[in-house]
């Protein structure tokens, strides 16, 4: 085999070599070539660094409003059939409005009960 063929075969096997998929005899032959060929060794090192760089690309999370935006899209395209807004405010359940309504209801209940209570303070008739 010529030197050029040997280089080509080595370079073609880089991916399989780094992923541990080369059969033992091919792996031994490649490592033998690498031991004697600085050109292929350098090329393998750069190949490895390229893969390393890809693996280190950071994971980017979807935007905060992603779910709400999709719900809005589906709602619009289904002409309001899905993801109706009646339970949602800005794409979520409006807990603050529900809490406020609850407080008002309790206040009204308290006032009504206090007014009708027999132990409540009654004005002295003239």
């Amino acid at each position, binding site marked *: 085999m010529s030197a050029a063929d040997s280089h080509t075969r080595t370079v073609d096997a880089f*991916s399989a070599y780094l992923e541990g998929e080369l059969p033992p005899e091919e792996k031994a032959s490649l490592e033998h070539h690498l031991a004697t060929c600085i050109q292929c060794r350098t090329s393998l090192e750069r190949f490895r*660094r*390229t*893969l390393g760089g*890809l693996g280190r690309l950071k994971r*980017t999370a979807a935007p905060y409003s*992603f*779910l709400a935006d999709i719900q809005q899209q589906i709602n619009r395209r289904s002409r309001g059939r899905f993801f109706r807004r009646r339970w949602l405010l800005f794409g979520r359940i409006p807990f603050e409005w529900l809490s406020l309504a609850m407080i008002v209801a309790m206040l009204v209940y308290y006032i009504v009960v206090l007014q009708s209570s027999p132990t409540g303070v009654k004005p002295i008739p003239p």
Partner: protein
Amino acid sequence: MSLSERLLVARLVRRDEEAFNEVVRQYGDRVFNLVLRMVGSRAEAEDIAQEVFVTVFKSIDSFRSEAKLSTWLLRIASNHAKNRIKYLARRREQGHEPSGSDSGDLADEGKAPAQSHIHGPDVLLEAAETEDIMQQAIATLEEDQRLLVVLRDVEELSYEEIVEITGLPEGTVKSRLHRARMTLKQLLEDKFK
């Protein structure tokens, strides 16, 4: 497919909105990241990723239960991303958009290191491992090669999953992926020559 996934799909088929929310919460980041790495622009990625989930909601009936829900989703995402890349390339050819890499705003987030501060090619290659340079290099690959690199080397999926997503035989995936990696390596070397 696991039992919980089957139940989730059954709810999706009934257009259960809470089941759909669950799917978006579970796979939203993964789909967004895949599409972002494919198109290189945050604005485009947001638009495509939303479109992916709208498609999921519409076409869940066509989901075959022998596949995994995640790979089905990623297949839809990769098809949408590839179509958008072609569309954007066409628009650029017709002069509707400024020419240049479609790595867009991702590449603008960080600046390439000044070459005057760097000496040997190995040090330059180390510098090339920074995010923006890598993203620009990915953006120069053809969309099929880009997809394979993103699925395998960025998302770290198994060959089995990639075969399911792309519909290509495993041997083809491996040989095309190797060519894509070699192209990337060459691009990075040329960039710093």
